[in-house]
């Protein structure tokens, strides 16, 4: 791969996976964490997100019912492929 082409690629798995992000340490690092409550605060009803009725117009295309159906079909094929691999066990030799 040419150098120019490599430069066009902004993503580096090494940066993403192995680089340890610089982090604050000591008790102060936990201050905002302990302030954050998982449940909506009772005194702040505005925090609670309203459980609105389903509005399917807000569902992204990757989560549409067709996409979920396709994923179900893929699940079945994967299951079959795993069973096939098991049932032909011992037939492949690597050496």
């Amino acid at each position, binding site marked *: *791969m040419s150098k120019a082409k*490599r430069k066009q*690629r*902004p*993503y*580096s*798995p*090494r940066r*993403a*996976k*192995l680089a340890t*992000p*610089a*982090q604050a340490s000591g008790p102060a690092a936990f201050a*905002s*964490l302990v*302030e*954050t*409550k*998982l449940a*909506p605060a009772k005194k702040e009803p*505005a*925090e*609670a*997100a309203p*459980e*609105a009725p*389903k*509005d*399917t117009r*807000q*569902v*992204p*295309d*990757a*989560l*549409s*019912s067709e*996409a*979920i159906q396709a*994923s179900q079909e*893929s*699940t079945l*094929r*994967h*299951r*079959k*492929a*795993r069973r*096939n*691999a*098991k049932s*032909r*066990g*011992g*037939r*492949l*030799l*690597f*050496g």
Partner: protein
Amino acid sequence: MHPADFGLGEPRLLDLPREWATIERRYKPLGPSSPLEWVFEHVRSLGASVALLEHQYLDRDYRDEYRQFYAKTFRWIPDRCERLHFWTRRNRYLGYVSLRPIAGRPVGRTMLAPGPEFEDDVSCVAAGSASPYGIRNTIEAFPYISQDRQYGRCAHAVIWMIAQYHHLRFGAPQRFMSEIVSAAASVEFGRVVPSDGLTDDQVGAALRYLDLGALQYGIGEEDDLTQSDLEKTLRRYLNSAMPVALATPGHLTAVIGAGYERGRLEVISCDDEHGVYMRRPIRFPTAEERSGEAEKDSDVWEMLLAPLPGRIYAPYEEVEKPILEELADLAARFTAPDLLGERRTRVREYVAEVRDYKARLRSRGLPQAVADAHAQVPSARWLWVVELQDAELAKRSPECVLGEIVVDATSDRDDLVFLYANLPGTRISWPGPRRNRQVVRVPAAGVQPYLTGTALNL
């Protein structure tokens, strides 16, 4: 130098490229060896300008092979190795290769940097170190070993490489060739040493014994994975930085990375008979090959084995549907109208170690309140993370995530334990034993895509 003379000599610094001929002369009696040629070619391409010859190197992996096999032969074979370390002119450590005194099969434990040609596409790299003469050097690489064709064959080498990677990267126990030979022998009816190779059953048994039980996927026959299923499966494991083993007729290699070349997915494989980082296309079987009407070529893909650390119980494909349904439900109920708009989206999933996932949460651009909330939810060690990404942004930038949902990887496939999620303007958690859904608004000025947690953004 004759292999029997290993152990003689002294430490030497060699000035490269001037002294390449010295190195090649020294190891010529051990050749020809494709992996050794690949190693020299690779470090040349990375700009190696100095090599250190570490003499009388006691390589634990070779000592294990020696004790179990070579010590029981008549040939005069030394019990120690030599090791070559390489640096660039700017003192960047490129890694090492340990050289066994075995003619034709000299490449022992090796850690070599992928270099610019491969580093963007290889997700399975682990940090290792070498301390020749007490001076420590660190290196990020995929661990490599070539087969010695007697005690171990390609399958043993691939299992060793994957186990060594899990040792260095995820803290799994260090494994030696004798453990692999012995584990595979549990389903062997013939003699074990010298080895004639391993069957797929033996590979599976050995991986299970090493606590890396594999999910096995058939590719080569009818009713196996389709090409799009195969690519999806590869993306999943490589985005998780989990190497997979690839079976082709008669041969096993490790797949450790992938990338798109002219719109087609290509993988980076690690081949014990050729070299550490090799780019290769996906060779999906033809319809005739799948049905058995045509004989398979030697490069056709037959099976994929995905070795996973112990407690990733739920295969993702078995839990994908309920995860997507939950994410769709959250989007339908809690995402403010027009926030996701007309974006084209895609879903990407990966498995992550919780400490690594949480350590990187705050540096990925999620709102602080979301990162703080996610970080305090307890969980088991491994998580399935499913990202909703902007499909167009994802093609050109890793900052493409619109939201994500995280599931406990020890979940029962019929009773998923959702842990936390976030979508634009909302964060969700399911804390405590009752797992009641808690939804909290997060003030947001529009949608701000953030950095993916996948290793390759494939």
